C-alpha cells in the first residue's frame, strides 16, 4: 500500500465545496428554520422557537389536502404504472425484429420536458376541443371538464403521470428480463406450460427485485410531484387549488405567502417520508444481495 496522503482531498475539493454549500448547509438550515418563527427586525429575534411551524402546518387544511392528494396520487400512479409497464415489457421482450423499435418509442416520455409535454396534455384535456373528450365521444361519453372541475383534476393529473412514468419502468423491466435464465423458459416449454402460468410462476417472481425497486423509486418520485401539476394547470394546483400536492404546498408557502418557517417544516415532513422510503429500498436491495 502506498502511504496515505491528503492528496485525495485535492481531487474531491470541488465536489466537497459544492456539496457543503448547496446540500449539507441548506439541509441543516431548513431543519433549523422549521423550528423558528418569523424574524423581526425591530426586536432582532425570532417570534418563537419550537414546534409552532409544525402546529401551523398540521392545522392547515391545505396541507391536509396536499397530503391526501399526494397519497392518492402515489397509490394510483405507482401500481398502475408498474402493472402496465410489466405487461408491455414482457410483450416487447418477446418480439425479435421490432424490439428495438418499441423500446425506443416507449422510452420517449422519459427524456422530454414535463413542462412542455404537460402543456400539450393540457390541450388534449381541453373540454371542448380536446382529443381525449373526442375519443371518449366514440363511447358515448359526454365531454368531461377535466381541468375545470375539482373532481376531475386528480384523474387528469394521474393519467398524465402514468403516461410519463411508464417509460422508466419499462426500461428497468426489459433490463431485468434479460437476466432471467433461458433454461427456466425452456423447461416450461418442454412441459408446455400455459403462457399465463409462465408469466405468473417464472417471470414475475424472477423480476420481483426489479418490481420492488421500481415501486420504491416510483413512490419517491411521486411524493415529490410538482412540475406535472404546474404544467397541467398552468401554474396553479388545479381548479380552486384542489390538486394541491406536498411540494406544491411547500413552494406556495415559501414563494407566494412568504411563510418560510411553515415551508421549511413542510419540507422536513417530506424529507422524513422520503427517508422512510429509501430505508425500505435499502432493506430490500440489501436482502437481494444477501441471497
Amino acid at each position: 500500500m502506498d502511504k496515505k496522503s491528503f492528496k485525495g482531498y485535492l481531487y474531491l475539493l470541488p465536489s466537497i465545496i459544492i456539496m457543503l454549500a448547496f446540500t449539507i448547509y441548506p439541509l441543516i438550515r431548513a431543519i433549523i428554520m422549521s423550528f423558528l418563527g418569523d424574524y423581526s427586525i425591530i426586536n432582532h429575534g425570532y417570534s418563537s422557537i419550537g414546534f409552532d411551524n409544525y402546529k401551523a402546518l398540521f392545522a392547515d387544511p391545505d396541507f391536509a389536502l396536499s397530503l391526501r392528494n399526494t397519497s392518492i396520487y402515489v397509490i394510483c400512479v405507482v401500481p398502475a404504472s408498474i402493472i402496465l409497464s410489466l405487461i408491455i415489457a414482457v410483450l416487447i421482450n418477446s418480439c425479435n425484429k421490432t424490439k428495438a423499435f418499441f423500446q425506443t418509442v416507449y422510452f420517449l416520455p422519459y427524456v422530454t420536458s414535463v413542462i412542455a409535454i404537460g402543456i400539450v396534455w393540457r390541450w388534449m384535456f381541453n373540454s371542448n376541443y380536446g382529443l381525449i373528450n373526442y375519443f371518449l365521444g366514440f363511447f358515448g361519453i359526454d365531454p368531461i371538464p377535466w381541468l375545470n372541475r375539482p373532481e376531475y383534476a386528480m384523474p387528469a393529473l394521474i393519467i398524465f403521470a402514468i403516461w410519463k412514468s411508464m417509460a422508466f419502468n419499462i426500461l428497468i423491466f426489459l433490463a431485468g428480463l434479460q437476466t432471467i435464465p433461458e433454461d427456466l423458459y425452456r423447461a416450461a416449454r418442454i412441459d408446455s406450460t400455459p403462457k399465463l402460468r409462465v408469466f405468473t410462476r417464472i417471470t414475475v417472481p424472477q423480476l420481483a427485485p426489479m418490481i420492488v425497486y421500481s415501486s420504491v423509486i416510483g413512490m419517491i418520485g411521486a411524493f415529490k410531484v410538482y412540475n406535472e401539476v404546474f404544467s397541467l394547470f398552468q401554474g396553479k394546483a388545479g381548479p380552486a387549488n384542489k390538486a394541491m400536492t406536498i411540494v406544491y404546498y411547500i413552494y406556495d408557502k415559501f414563494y407566494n405567502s412568504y411563510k418560510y418557517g411553515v415551508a421549511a417544516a413542510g419540507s422536513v415532513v417530506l424529507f422524513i417520508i422520503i427517508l422512510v422510503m429509501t430505508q425500505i429500498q435499502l432493506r430490500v436491495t440489501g436482502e437481494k444481495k444477501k441471497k
Partner: protein
Amino acid sequence: MSQNRKVGNIIATILKYAVLIFGAVFTILPFVWMISSSLKTPTELVQIPPSLFPETPQWSNYQEAWKAAPFARYFVNTLIVTFCTTCGVLVTTVLSAFAFSRLNFPGKKTVFSLFLATLMIPGEMLIITNYETIINLKWIDSYKAMIIPWISSAFYIYLLTRFFMQVPESLYLAAKVDKCSDFKYMIKIMVPMNKQAIFSIAILNIISSWNAFLWPLLVTNSQEMRVLSNGLVRFQTEAGSSTELIMAASCMLVMPIIIIYLFLRKYIIEGVTRSGLKG
C-alpha cells in the same frame, strides 16, 4: 390438435401486437398532437372532428412564435446553462470518482458514505434555503446562480466510481512504477478507458439541465436571463388562446432533446438502465 395450437399462436401474436401498437400510439400521441397542432390554422385547431394532419402546414406559426417572445435569447441561455453545467459535472465527477477509486487518504470511506447519504435528500427540500444562499451571494439573475449549484452530482460520482473500480488495479501500479503521476494516469488511462460511461453521464446531464424548470424560474427575474422552459410557461400565459403558437413553442423545447435521443438512444438507454440497476 397442432392445427388448433397454430391458430392459437397466430391469435396470440395478433393480440400481442395489437396491445403493443395501441400502447405505442398512446405513448407518442402527445408528441404527434403537439407537432400537428403547431402546424394548424386557428380554425383547423377547433374543428370537430379534429384532423390528424393540417391541410397545409402553417410553418409560419413557428416564425410567429419565435418573434412573439425572445425565444432566440431563451435558446442561447439554455444552451449556455446546459453546456456549462455539463462541463462542470464532468470535471468534478471524474476527479471525485478517481479519488474514491484509486487514491488512498484518511477518512475516504466516511466521505464516500456521506456522499451516498446525500442521495436520500430530496432536492425539493433544499431549494428554499438554496434560494436564500443565492440572494445572500447576490447571484440572483445570473448564469452563476443557474449553473454552480448543479456542477456536482453525488449520483454521477457514485456511478463513475463503480466504473473506475472495474479498471484493474495492476494498471495503476504499473503506471506508478513508470513514474506516471496520478493526474496524468487519470487523464491518459482512466478517462479513455471509461469514455462510454462518461459520455452517458454527459448526455443524461444535458437532458436534465435542458429540462430544468423550477430552479431557473426562482433565481432569474429578467427576461434576458430566462431559459426556454421558463420562457415557454411565460409565453403560454401571454399568448392566451393562440394554441397553435403555444404548441410551436413547446416543440422548440422538446425537439432538440428528441433529436439527441434518436441519435444517441443507445447511450441514453444504457446510462439510465445502469444507473437504475445499480440502485
